């Protein structure tokens, strides 16, 4: 029926609202908008700015000029940069493997029927819960050149005669910071894998047992394949966290001795902020991206091979 007043706007706006409410595309767009703004503002823009800065000679307090690949060309010829790349790869590789092995082992133990199971699971999380800076400070004391509790204990036991030079010797320093990172990272791996273990149906394990599978064969042919998707995700995150680690190194050694523990992240900070070379610092940070992408691709395409999960050989 026509509107006698001739004013049809309320019904038109009502129709628009109705159409909007019924439109899956429009609603989807609106619901995604906050996340999209967040991603653009806090991820895409800083990343883009970082990449751009890497191509400039920007310094603190001074807008830079475009210098092309000059920063990267300098880094290619910079021994300290390559040492930091080496340190980062070793740190990430060794720490990730140790975290995986020990985390999986811990998860398997926690998945067994243990007394006070919930209590132990809560305890295991503690290193992850403690702020990194605090645990780093604790390790700083543990590794102190003069007051290390480890050195003191070993000296009291008569096993060594003088304190271990944990952070002063390049090899010891690398091992020490890796140990601190492993201690801190194990809970994340262990609890995540424990969650994965609990999704494996007990009936599969029982069926394998009835077929005469040994505990090792049950682990190898039932548990591990079923756990692989979780392992892929957990290890991807673990590798990313380790590769980009900053706080532990900054507190324990600041990259010393003689840059033996400088990671790309700490070198990027040192050159970019206190050193004022924002362009070069950004270039070092951007140089981390290929390594990060490679590790992500390895995790996703290397560990999520479905045939292997299903007992095939790929």
């Amino acid at each position, binding site marked *: 029926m026509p509107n006698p007043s001739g004013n049809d706007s309320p019904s038109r706006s009502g129709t628009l609202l109705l159409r909007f409410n019924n439109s899956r595309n429009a609603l989807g767009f609106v619901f995604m908008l906050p996340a999209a703004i967040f991603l653009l503002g806090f991820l895409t823009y800083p990343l883009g700015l970082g990449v751009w800065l890497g191509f400039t000679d920007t310094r603190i307090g001074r807008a830079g000029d475009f210098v092309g690949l000059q920063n990267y060309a300098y880094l290619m010829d910079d021994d300290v940069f390559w040492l930091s790349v080496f340190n980062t790869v070793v740190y990430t590789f060794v720490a990730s493997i140790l975290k995986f092995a020990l985390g999986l082992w811990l998860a398997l133990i926690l998945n067994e029927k243990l007394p006070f199971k919930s209590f132990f699971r809560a305890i295991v999380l503690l290193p992850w819960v403690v702020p990194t800076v605090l645990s780093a400070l604790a390790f700083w004391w543990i590794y102190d050149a*003069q007051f290390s509790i480890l050195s003191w204990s070993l000296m009291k036991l008569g096993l060594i005669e003088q304190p271990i030079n944990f952070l002063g010797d390049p090899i010891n320093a690398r091992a020490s910071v890796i140990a601190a990172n492993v201690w801190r990272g194990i809970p994340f791996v262990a609890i995540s894998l424990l969650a994965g273990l609990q999704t494996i149906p007990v009936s599969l394990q029982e069926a394998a047992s009835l077929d005469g599978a040994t505990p090792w064969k049950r682990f190898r042919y039932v548990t591990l394949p079923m756990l692989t998707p979780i392992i892929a995700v957990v290890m991807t995150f673990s590798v990313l966290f380790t590769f980009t680690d900053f706080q532990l190194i900054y507190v324990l050694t600041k990259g010393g001795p003689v840059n033996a523990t400088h990671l790309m992240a700490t070198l990027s900070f040192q050159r970019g902020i206190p050193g004022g070379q924002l362009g070069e610092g950004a270039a070092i940070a951007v140089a981390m991206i290929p390594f990060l992408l490679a590790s992500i691709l390895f995790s996703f395409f290397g560990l999520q091979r479905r045939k292997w999960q299903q007992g095939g050989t790929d």
Partner: protein
Amino acid sequence: MKINRRDLLAASASLAGAAGLGLTGSQPAFAQEPAYTPEAGASLRLLRWAPFVQGDEDAWLANTKKFTDATGVQVRVDKESWEDIRPKAAVTANVGSGPDMVFCWFDDAHQYPDKLVDLTDLGTYLDGKYGGFYDGLKGYAKRGDKYIALPLAAIGNAVCYRQSRIEAAGFKEFPKDTAGFLDLCKAMKAQGTPAGFAHGKAVGDGNNYVHWLLWSHGGKMVDEAGVVAINSPETIAAINYAKALYETFIPGTESWQDINNNRAFLAGQISLTANGVSLYYAAKKDEKLKDMVADLRATNFPIGPVGMGVELYQTTQAVVFNHTKYPNACKAYLKFMYEAEQMNAWITGSSAYCCQPLKAFASNPVWTADPIHAPYAKASETLRPNGYAGPLGYASAAVMADYVLVDMFAAAVTGSATPEEAVAQAEKRANRYYKV
């Protein structure tokens, strides 16, 4: 009677100036007194380094309260660990937001001079009124003819040692030259009471030590024109001397950061190191260390082949950022804090940790209140700037921030590089900043 803002501005400088003149006993001709009227509704935020001596903070805050009481301008004083000031000030400069004023370190102000409020009128006035800023400090604060910062203090650094232990090592008094110093350190190691100086990435102690090593042997990072000159026979001599000294240290100094030598000294693990006067006060606070306090002595670093005392001291400057909405309030605040009454109270409260920026305050009684203070008293007068012998600027700041010299000595003394390799590496890194 309540003092209003106008009264304060008119009277504070003259009253305080009179106090200053009383100290110096001279009648300097000083530049015309600038008057700063704080903007209506002004409130300020100052970021400073966390104090090492509590009296420093107490005195600064008490002076600040006096300023607020007199002007109504609220001043929030935030503090951060001293190592975090440099990056925070840098970010503040870059993003144009944050505190109105910062107490920055060394040549920070030269990294972002365009972001700072010109303080020439205030600097010139204070320079004229209080006997002049010390040249070394002035260099950190001036760019050309402009004050881009106000020199605030030099943080004195001195060799701290146990008298009984150097005597036990066969030395009645502390050696005056580097050769004697090496002999002392060897003797101290032989008797199990070694020395220890930071070779790790210790921003303060590490840089102070290695700059003395280099300069005392005649080496320098750059020449007067800012051309990198580290690769020299003098540098090699300094490194060889450092290697010999390092052999006498307690093990582990390669990993030492700024706090480690304090801990080791207070625990009796080392008997000789270099530090600010805070080490003495830390010992004094501990009842159990009474004997150590009585035995503790401080002196300046020994003189090397160069024939004169040459030391790097940390310097701190007050800067006002362009982004402040209240530049006049900032200047009024700084002017108030630098006037004699407040400055003397602050220097006294700092217990010899902060050495005065202006010559008129050299007669502050704090310097004679305790014999330990004596070697710290001349820090502002004798300091050599870190960019020596070239101009201060972003390159000199970056070379120090990137630990170029610290790494050079650490690499050589630990044997991870030969002296020649270590120097070549340092030269390459320095050239990057000085843009060859």
